């Protein structure tokens, strides 16, 4: 094992040294992208990319004229289908089906939601998922940092400059510039942090909103914030862990590896690095006592002490039930807090935010039970939208950190299902236009073709987002006594089905032991005092 580790270390070091030939001693071996491209193709010199390109699909056609299998690879990926089968439960999931307590369902809101789709033109349910010209290559492969899909345009970027007033922004129109597609097409390359981040940092409708451990601070993080992605850390990009095989990403939330049993990922293996063990192995610590934890405690639990550490707050609560309030001017109300975050939006309701948030901890064996829009729900209690499975006795489960997102969202009080809420659009039913739930839910359910009783209410929901990014340097790992403590606010106070040294004890033994020690000390003192007193008497005689 040790030999193997040394061998891999040496190989990595060798590769890094070669890549940085003769630049003198450089701190830790940089596994990430070298600043100087080592690509064998200069795309700016290619005939096919001369352009000029007026639209996204035109660029895609040009890309596919050489990369002639890329389109079909992408069309199999979840980035395109927004649909996947859970490998553990067999349930059909993905953005299309799984419910969440952020924006809700993309159904009937496609034009807005698909600004994060790896394609062009998904504006309604008739989108052609088989046309490879609709694949968006640039979202992932732009290296200029200037490509941007425009919010309300169904996955397209702007093709001409446009004046636009964002719903929750300051009043008044703002000019949005169209990106230079030709220049971008000529400067494509491997995806960097900003490419993935354009969508994954902005999930839930804005920077840091959804995940808590993914936000724009990771574009250029300090070592403190993310030891892997920091320039003075390992300088890695997302795809160094989330390795892609034929455009299929690894490390999906819907198919998580709660406990890696494979360990080091070698060239002969499956090129899936999306676990800590892929690079760090099973025994990464010098001390055996700490390695002993890896069986039951996920690496993330100790190595990500808090999430939202990059100075950008994440949403912790979203209460849709209060949406629709108008200000004294009769216009929709938007209120910002002292930090400039919207704390109330007429379109979306009330929000709560948090920075440097301590995660909640739960057993997790990789099996999630997401509620889909069609599932019958129990409205007598808080609805957990994606219960994670696991317990101390489950050999596949480990204790994982989670951001628990809390909220209140609309549901059908008769049929007991969640609902599709039609929020976005220029029509006469969209919530964000008319602020009328009765209309927007009815329209959403009709569009989705789902049964709706016409009666709606709001149900309290919570959702588990496991925390796996923003890994801190080892010296910032959670100190042992934050779990091994009797304090009521110990990190693992919710994990009650294990014996945790330092927290748990046997009351009878403690009582007996306490009495024994008190008896020993008290007995000695008493005996001694009597001795002193009786001696005095003797001496006085």
């Amino acid at each position, binding site marked *: 094992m040790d030999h193997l580790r040394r061998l891999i270390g040496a190989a990595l070091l060798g590769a890094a040294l070669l890549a940085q030939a003769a630049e003198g001693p450089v701190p830790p071996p940089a596994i990430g992208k070298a600043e100087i491209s080592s690509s064998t193709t200069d795309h700016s010199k290619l005939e096919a990319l001369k352009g000029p390109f007026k639209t996204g699909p035109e660029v895609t056609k040009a890309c596919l004229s050489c990369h002639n299998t890329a389109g079909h690879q992408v069309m199999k990926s979840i980035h395109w289908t927004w649909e996947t089968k859970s490998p553990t439960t067999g349930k059909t999931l993905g953005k299309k089906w799984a419910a969440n307590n952020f924006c809700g369902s993309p159904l009937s809101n496609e034009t807005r939601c698909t600004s994060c789709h790896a394609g062009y033109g998904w504006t309604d349910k008739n989108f052609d998922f088989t046309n490879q010209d609709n694949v968006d290559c640039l979202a992932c492969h732009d290296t200029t940092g200037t490509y941007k899909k425009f919010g309300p345009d169904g996955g397209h970027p702007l093709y001409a400059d446009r004046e636009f007033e964002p719903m929750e922004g300051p009043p008044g129109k703002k000019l949005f510039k169209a990106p230079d597609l030709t220049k971008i097409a000529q400067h494509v390359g491997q995806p960097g942090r900003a490419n993935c981040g354009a969508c994954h940092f902005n999930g839930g409708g804005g920077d840091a909103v959804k995940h808590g451990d993914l936000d724009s601070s990771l574009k250029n993080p300090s070592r403190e914030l993310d030891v892997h992605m920091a320039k003075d850390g390992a300088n890695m990009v997302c795809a160094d862990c989330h390795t892609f095989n034929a455009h299929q990403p690894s490390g999906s939330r819907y198919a998580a590896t709660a406990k890696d049993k494979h360990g080091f990922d070698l060239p002969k293996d499956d090129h899936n690095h999306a676990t800590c063990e892929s690079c760090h192995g099973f025994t990464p610590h010098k001390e055996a*006592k700490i390695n002993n934890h890896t069986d039951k405690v996920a690496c993330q639990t100790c190595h990500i002490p808090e999430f939202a550490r990059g100075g950008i707050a994440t949403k912790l609560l979203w209460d849709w039930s209060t949406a629709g309030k108008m200000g004294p001017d009769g216009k929709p109300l938007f209120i910002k807090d002292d930090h400039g975050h919207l704390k109330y939006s007429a379109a979306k309701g009330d929000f709560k935010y948090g920075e440097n948030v301590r995660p909640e901890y739960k057993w997790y064996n990789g099996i999630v039970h997401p509620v889909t829009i069609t599932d019958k729900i129990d409205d007598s209690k808080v609805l957990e939208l994606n219960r994670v499975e696991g317990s101390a006795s489950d050999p596949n489960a480990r204790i994982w950190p989670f951001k628990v997102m809390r909220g209140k969202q609309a549901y059908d009080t008769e049929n007991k299902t969640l609902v599709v809420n039609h929020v976005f659009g220029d029509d006469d039913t969209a919530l964000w236009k008319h602020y009328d739930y009765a209309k927007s839910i009815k329209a959403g359910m009709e569009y989705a073709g789902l049964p709706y009783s016409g009666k709606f209410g709001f149900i309290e929901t919570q959702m588990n987002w496991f925390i796996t990014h923003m890994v801190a340097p080892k010296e910032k790992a959670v100190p042992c006594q934050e779990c091994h403590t009797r304090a009521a606010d110990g990190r693992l106070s919710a994990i009650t089905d294990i014996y945790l040294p330092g927290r748990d004890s046997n009351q009878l033994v403690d009582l007996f032991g306490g009495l024994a020690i008190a008896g*020993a000390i008290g007995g000695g003192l008493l005996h001694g005092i009597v001795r002193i007193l009786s001696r005095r008497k003797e001496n006085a005689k």
Partner: protein
Amino acid sequence: MSERIYIYKRYERFWHWSQALLIIVMMITGFEVHGSYLLLGFKKAVQLHSLAAWTLLTLWAFTIFWQFTTGEWRQYLPSLKNVGAMIKYYTVGIFTNAPHPFHKTVSQKHNPLQRLAYLALLAFISPLIWGTGIFYLFYGDWARLGIDQSLSLETVAVLHTLGAYMITAFFFIHVYLTTTGHTVFAHIKAMITGWEEVDEKH
């Protein structure tokens, strides 16, 4: 009149005091691991506790060898003879300045009560602490050894704690009893220098 006898040999004194230090370290760190207080931090406490345990085990390996090669192990053979007299001394005689019923010699350095106490320590408390302690130390290997299903950390830890309470109680009684020599510090002095003043045989 009294005479001086050389009662604790050099190795014996080294053993006693290094063992005392290690046990004190293990009591302090052990009860921190138990969660009784926060002093060094859990990690340091565990590290120090384990280090002290391994050191004491090594010390014991040498000591057992010493006990057998020197024949000193016989000092721990129990005898019920005169136990009654010892109990009477500690409960009555000591207060009335009665003479100590036990005459310490080089070949009999422990009084009958001491012999019983040390035997209890060796036969009951030590195996309890060491047995559970070794399992605790090697918790990470339980699965490999195939004992993870039949043994629970809770059982091991609770029994270990029980042993810890008992040795701690023993420690305090032991320390108190060192003051019962002919002067308060006579016994401690003997354990440092090796020489003890004993009454001449009457």
